[in-house]
């Protein structure tokens, strides 16, 4: 396709200046507050520093990484919890959101009301989700223990306090929010699927399940990719809920929470915190690069 003749007239000097400013200000903000700090994180992960005086920064080689992997007790539990978070969102929360979307896409009565209910938690901050579920999970006065008939008895479970179960309790709370988001995106996706595809499949004798999994679901490929990326990134970003519950300790360790534990409070170990941040960065780059190549790959080739 011939490019549309955008350059009818060459840009004037003034236009170039205006354009430069338009690009420079946001780019500068982005560099200073996002990308430079990211590079600094990598840099600081190879140093030893208490965060006080800039002249105290000492090179430390890879010792922070060695410490994290070998001597830092919460690290491997945190990795496990992040993996668990991802698996749970991918296997429970996301399919639940898809199920809701499919059920609500059939033009049933009250569909909008249902949508509003399932979508409501998406409006809430994860911190607030943590507080609301704390009231629900509370050992002696929480609704869940009343419903299970264990409230006030020795067998009552402190859902957020017991390190054997709290990660699962937190995952249920996270699902409450994630599923509504996935539902919304899939509802938009399902509306975009050409109805003639379904009709053709029905004519060929496909049942509802076959139609969905072989025709409709593959046709939603762009949305599927977005949801895969969102699910992975949400599981790496998970932080607010566990921080509200107990600052990410005692069964709720996550890499993101460990980063913060090493940065604030006494005995700041910036090097260790930065090593953890860099590990988080490297893992995050996998879905980010996947998404970017999917989204921009074609355009980059064209230009």
């Amino acid at each position, binding site marked *: 396709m011939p490019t549309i003749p955008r350059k009818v007239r060459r840009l004037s000097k003034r236009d170039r200046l*205006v354009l430069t400013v338009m690009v420079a200000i946001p780019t500068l903000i982005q560099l200073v507050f996002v990308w430079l700090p990211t590079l600094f994180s990598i840099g600081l992960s190879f140093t030893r520093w208490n965060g006080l005086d800039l002249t105290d920064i000492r090179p430390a080689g890879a010792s922070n990484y060695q410490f994290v992997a070998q001597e830092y007790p919460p690290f491997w539990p945190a990795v496990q919890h992040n993996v668990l978070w991802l698996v749970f969102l991918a296997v429970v929360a996301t399919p639940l959101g898809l199920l809701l979307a499919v059920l609500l896409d059939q033009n049933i009565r009250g569909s909008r009301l249902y949508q509003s209910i399932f979508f409501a938690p998406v409006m809430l901050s994860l911190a607030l989700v943590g*507080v609301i579920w704390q009231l629900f999970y509370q050992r002696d006065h929480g609704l869940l223990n009343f419903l299970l008939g264990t409230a006030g008895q020795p067998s009552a479970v402190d859902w957020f306090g017991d390190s054997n179960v709290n990660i699962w309790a937190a995952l249920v709370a996270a699902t409450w929010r994630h599923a509504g988001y996935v539902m919304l995106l899939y509802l938009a996706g399902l509306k975009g699927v050409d109805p003639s595809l379904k009709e053709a499949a029905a004519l060929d004798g496909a049942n509802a399940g076959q139609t969905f999994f072989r025709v409709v679901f593959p046709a939603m490929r762009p949305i599927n990719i977005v949801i895969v990326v969102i699910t992975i990134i949400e599981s790496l970003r998970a932080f607010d809920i566990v921080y509200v519950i107990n600052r990410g300790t005692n069964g709720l360790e996550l890499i993101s929470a460990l980063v913060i534990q090493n940065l604030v409070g006494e005995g700041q170990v910036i090097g260790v915190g930065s090593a953890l*941040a860099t590990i988080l960065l490297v893992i995050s780059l996998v879905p980010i690069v996947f998404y970017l190549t999917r989204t921009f790959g074609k355009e980059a080739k064209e230009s």
Partner: protein
Amino acid sequence: MTVVATPTDLARGTEYSGSRPKRHYGTHVILLVLAVMWLLPLGWSLYTALRPVESTNQYGYFSVAGAFNFDNFVTAWNQGGFSKYFWNSVIITVPSVILTLFLSSLMAFAVSRVSWKFNITLLIMFTAGNLLPPQVLAAPLFQMFKHLNLPYWFSDSGTLLNTYISVIAVDTAFQIGFCTFVLSNYMKALSPDLTEAALVDGAGIWRQYWSVIMPLCRPAFAALGTLEVIFIYNDFFWPLLFIQSGDRLPVTTAINNLQGVFLSNYNLLAAGATITVIPTLVIYLLLQRQFVAGLTLGSSKG
């Protein structure tokens, strides 16, 4: 909310399966059960909040006896200092959203309406920045702000820490990426003839941006604006990291401290949580369409 099945709905329902409407009973059962489960945590908070602590102490939390009133809300509002926290949220959210939308519209215009060399590279950089976990850049940002000395008339900490500006700057920087991505897609979809015509009329770049493109982007701004208000209002992390004085926290971060303030008075805590829900609920009810449009705009291209 009334939802009546229109004739076309009924027609569609029977169109390709040929089954009777009866088919939907199973769907309704599943949806009803899930909807009740979905409402339980919020409903429980509201229910607890409406009961005075005397009733719950006497009858237990799992009971229907005793009085119901709004006293907890009043007490929580006053004791919790909510007016201050809400004001802090406004101080942070309003400038952040305006700055984010304005700066990203500049960037989006430059990368989508003018072709030049680094378009895609910059757009990739902006989009990627928004996808990073915030904790990745927390330490250097904290240290940068801590080591930036400022006059005391400007900041009582002598640095950027403990100021609203620190949160506004980082919120803006973080959200610009997402908004630039969405707006650039939106602007790309506008016909090139629009700016061509303006160009022929002798309009400079700024006129093309401000008088031609910006007015056409109103729907996108409405959707993104609603979304960003919610995003930034809901942001927990940046104020947690940068602001040390409790009385400068926005409401979302402040709820973390409410458990300490209200000790073990769950009725007050529930009231506090419910109060925090109200602004988002109001925005949701008023601007649901905008919010949903904003969320799906971001994913429409993938």
